[in-house]
């Protein structure tokens, strides 16, 4: 039977989780930090310190003075490290959802009963729960055991809540990378493994380029489109891939997990680096968007750049954002459509040697001035 809950009960879910967070904090203490992200100041608190570093490490470059007033909050907690059990009713709800799956959720984990109310909720991945109070701008992030935090959550922490916090009719978390030039940025679009990360990371050593992201950015199309960095994570498919990018392999933070081989082992991880930890001067936080570039490996001797029509850029950029972020829909599609109509788009045929990529992108940015 489908779960059906009215607004009062939806709010109760948030209230129960928020109270449990306070209980957990009373038991083991709490941490707090504020991050300026996509035009918002998000106050992140964790109950205890088990989740603090894993969930904020990728956003450290956005940390600001905690005295700055927050525009939104995220409270994160787990049961195992804090000793605070999940509230009984919530525990039963999650057990029900574990059984009913698509009867009550969509493929991305969004709870259908919360789709149109004052509270949004998604239950996804290995039992991760994100609940957001739209009116109070207060998010709760829960998982059962902090030690079981998936590697990809550390690489892109809170992305579901971040999406809900930053989303407006003209602002959206978008599945894309970005690199910055002297006076503007190139958005890097495309599905997983299309070459976004390698392209972004290949630009790290170029003096004329700055790293913004390899996977998620906030795009604002209120006026001139802008892109904001969210995470400084850089991920590649395998440790060997980092060998092709000078000096980066030694900076991988999850060598043991990555050594198991991505995709071949249930616990396998993509190797990750955090750019702000070794090259903070190479980062750009916010820039106007000059173009959208879709990398595609073509095995060429040199880069090949080909203009794409705006409607194709929209069709290439929108699906992976919609696929990955629960509760994205019409608003995200409109925002991405506006973006794709305001800036030009290009296909970037990637060469065998990634060191040839930065000069090609510098030249493209110069042409777009």
């Amino acid at each position, binding site marked *: 039977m489908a779960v059906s809950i009215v607004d009062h009960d939806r709010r109760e879910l948030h209230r129960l989780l928020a109270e449990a967070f306070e209980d957990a904090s009373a038991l083991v203490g709490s941490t707090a930090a504020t991050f300026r992200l996509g035009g918002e100041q998000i106050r992140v608190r964790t109950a205890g310190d088990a989740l603090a570093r894993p969930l904020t490490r990728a956003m450290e470059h956005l940390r600001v003075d905690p005295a700055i007033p927050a525009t939104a909050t995220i409270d994160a907690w787990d049961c195992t490290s804090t000793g605070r059990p999940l509230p009984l009713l919530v525990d039963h709800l999650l057990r029900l959802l574990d059984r009913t799956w698509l009867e009550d959720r969509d493929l*991305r984990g969004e709870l259908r009963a919360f789709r149109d109310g004052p509270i949004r909720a998604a239950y996804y991945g290995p039992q991760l729960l994100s609940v957001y109070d739209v009116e109070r701008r207060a998010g709760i992030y829960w998982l059962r055991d902090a030690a079981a935090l998936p590697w990809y959550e550390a690489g892109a922490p809170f992305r579901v809540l971040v999406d809900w916090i930053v989303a407006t009719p003209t602002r959206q978390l978008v599945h894309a990378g970005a690199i910055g030039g002297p006076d503007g940025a190139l958005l890097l679009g495309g*599905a997983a493994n299309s070459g976004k990360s390698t392209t972004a990371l290949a630009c790290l050593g170029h003096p004329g380029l700055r790293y913004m992201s390899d996977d998620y950015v906030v795009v604002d199309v209120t006026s001139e489109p802008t892109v904001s960095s969210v995470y400084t994570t850089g991920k590649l498919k*395998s440790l060997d891939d980092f060998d092709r990018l000078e000096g980066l392999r030694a900076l991988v933070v999850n060598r043991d997990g990555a050594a198991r081989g991505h995709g071949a082992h249930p616990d396998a991880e993509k190797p990750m680096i955090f750019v702000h930890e070794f090259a903070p001067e190479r980062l750009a936080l916010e820039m106007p968007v000059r173009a959208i570039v879709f990398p595609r*490996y073509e095995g060429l001797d040199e880069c090949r750049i080909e203009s794409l029509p705006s409607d194709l850029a929209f069709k290439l950029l929108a699906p992976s954002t919609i696929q990955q972020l629960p509760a994205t829909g*019409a608003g995200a599609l409109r925002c991405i459509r506006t973006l794709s109509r305001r800036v030009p788009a290009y296909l970037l045929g990637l060469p065998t040697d990634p060191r040839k990529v930065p000069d090609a992108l510098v030249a493209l940015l110069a042409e777009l001035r």
Partner: protein
Amino acid sequence: MTSGYRVESAHVVSEVFEDGEATIIDLRSGMYYSLNPVGSLLWPLMVDGATLDDLVRHAIGSTDGGPAIASSIEHFVAALVAEGLVAEVADVAPRASAAPNDAPHPYEPPEIQRFDELQELLLLDPIHDVSAQGWPHTARD
């Protein structure tokens, strides 16, 4: 309640823009679909659930098409069902007839377009394009 058709909201995200362009994304595959103008007129009815008769009456009221259009709409719905975007359901409440549109759209059979050519770009993955060794090794190496 009677039988009709409803969008598969568990895995379908869609939007019809002001200019009449409809965007449909299948979350299972990442496949992108678009509809022609008459298809875009009919899609919103199926979001909430609509009978075939609802769709035909809406098309007649909104376009210059006559009763003969029923078979083309039936084909359209069958194509949506075949793509897994719409399901046949048994709990649709029939709609009241809408007032005819004073400036009806020209009728053309509703159609769905699947962007197969995008699949290659959207789903560039290691199985198809990059070998287990990663860049720059292709699966063909």
